[in-house]
């Protein structure tokens, strides 16, 4: 099966410090993947590279059926290619309503003139309502995003990603600060989303990862340390040494 995203031999340094060190990692077209690793392992930086925020010093990032390189593309262009990203800190537009947040994310032409002359359509309204239902915010469309609870903001941001109709979703620590029920709901949303696309979830919480029930990649010092089922990787002695042993100590 050909891959959706192939990251090969990527390295990046910040002031001489190698945050990503010859990293190679691939994702299929429909899969759910968890990425775990200690703080500073380079998980967020990996997402920065894929989404065009950080330029790697070397290596390649190849995308899609046409095998195009994402390196050198602008962030907005990469997003248009079908890569959606959720930040570690929830970032929604707090001064705008849930509906406006979702409408902005909806897959529509993105140029200033298309947006200026954009008209509301029934089709778009239907899509917004469908996404809102999916993330449990169907009754909150007219509320300001700033009034939502922390968990709801996280869902709204996931909803914005879904509205973009991306082929790859990069989700950075979605469960941080969530209650147990909220976490369960979040895993359900992510698992459903992964039925039709690739979803990559960075998370610290082992229970959360277990609920995702998917292949796990362990990052350490900017490179892949182990890959496989959760039970397989956590029984790996090197993983226990660098991550679990330390984090759980």
């Amino acid at each position: 099966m050909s891959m959706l995203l192939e990251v090969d031999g990527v390295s990046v340094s910040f002031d001489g410090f190698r945050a990503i060190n010859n990293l190679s990692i691939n994702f299929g077209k429909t899969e759910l993947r968890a990425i775990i690793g200690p703080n500073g392992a380079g998980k967020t930086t990996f997402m920065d590279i894929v989404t065009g925020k950080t330029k790697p010093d070397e290596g390649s990032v190849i995308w899609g059926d046409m095998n195009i390189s994402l390196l050198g593309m602008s962030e907005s262009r990469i997003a248009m290619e079908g890569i959606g990203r959720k930040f570690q800190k929830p970032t929604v537009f707090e001064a705008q309503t849930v509906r406006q947040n979702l409408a902005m994310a909806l897959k529509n032409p993105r140029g200033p003139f298309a947006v200026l002359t954009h008209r509301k359509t029934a089709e778009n309204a239907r899509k917004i309502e469908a996404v809102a239902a999916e993330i449990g915010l169907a009754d909150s469309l007219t509320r300001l995003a700033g009034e939502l609870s922390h968990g709801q903001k996280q869902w709204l941001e996931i909803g914005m990603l879904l509205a973009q109709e991306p082929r790859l979703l990069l989700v950075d620590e979605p469960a941080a600060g969530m209650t147990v029920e909220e976490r369960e709901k979040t895993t359900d949303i992510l698992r459903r989303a992964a039925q039709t696309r690739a979803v990559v979830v960075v998370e610290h919480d082992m229970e959360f990862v277990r609920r995702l029930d998917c292949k796990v990649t362990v990052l350490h010092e900017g490179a892949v340390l182990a890959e496989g089922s959760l039970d397989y990787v956590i029984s790996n002695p090197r993983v226990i040494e660098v991550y679990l042993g330390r984090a759980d100590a």
Partner: protein
Amino acid sequence: MKNTFIAQNPSVLWFLLALGLFSIGVTALSEVSGVGVISTSFVKVLGKMLCLCLIAIAMDVVWGYCGILSLGHFAFFGIGGYAVGMWLMYARTEGIVLESLSTQVIPPTPQEISDAIGNQIFGVVGSSDFPMIWSFADSLFLQLLMVVLIPGLLALVFGWLAFRSRVTGVYLSILTQAMTLALSLYLFQNDSGLRGNNGLSGLQNIPGFEATSQATLSIAFFLASSFALAAGYVFFAWVVSGKMGSVVKGIRDNEARVRFLGYHVESYKLFVFTITAIVSGIAGALYYPQAGIINPGEIAPIASIYLAVWVAIGGRGRLYGAVIGAALVSLLSSWFTGGGAPNINLGFYTVNWTDWWLVLLGFSFVAVTLFFPKGIGGLFDYLVRKPQ
């Protein structure tokens, strides 16, 4: 579509209504109607105030809505003024020159006419040659085109360079201020071709309307300014409503998020920067015929800072707030600095408002920023309940 736009923005209708009543009221009380309660010079003050309101809403769109604290929009205003001023000065001088030469026995050659006009205009800077930038000064149409083209192009080029390099926040403000300063310093030079620190004068005399009284002209410009403000208000209200408004406000609140949603943020900033620059140019072109004179001091960076102060006091992120701020502060400013406000004798010291007005304005700005971040316009939130 029109219906939904108005329905979703009832404040636009209220604004147009208020502006319409104000314009009719001023006209009815002016010397033109015969009532004369409002003097011609005060009609000019009010007309200029409307132009300042127009640039204030442009500033609000670029700063209050899009988050770009431009300290350069008064430069665009000044360019608009210079562009129209060149035609006004040229055409009027031409009329005077032709009249004085018409008494000569031998008809003057075109070169002689041109030299005479050049002498009149550029004598103050010790020159009589027409600089290149005056090439189109004889054409009202072309100079009016310059009113929109030059601010538009300057904003486009400057904005493209700045936004492309991702200059944001205070660095961008400094950059825009540097642009303004450079332009102002350039214009101060005698060989800039725009009469150095003399600037352009006599702009209140409109060629072709020599027989028309200033009372009538002042009302004509007042109404034109009112119309321009109305049109600008509706235009900007339309731009910042709907999806464009969402994206622009999104850029203000979290640029990166907008970018990762797939929007090319730089294009949006450039769009907003450029259209607001053009509207600022138009506002300037209407302002200076009412002021009568323009000089490089008008473009000095401080003017653009005042502009930001008006918008902050009036309330950022709402167009009527910018109008209130600009109207109130500019009127108060001309009252205080024009000797209207009585000096306060403290016995040991006399507070002379022409000197102390700026201090008062500074304190008001600090007070508003600290205690009423929504500005005067924020008071309307208490009057109008948001429909849920």
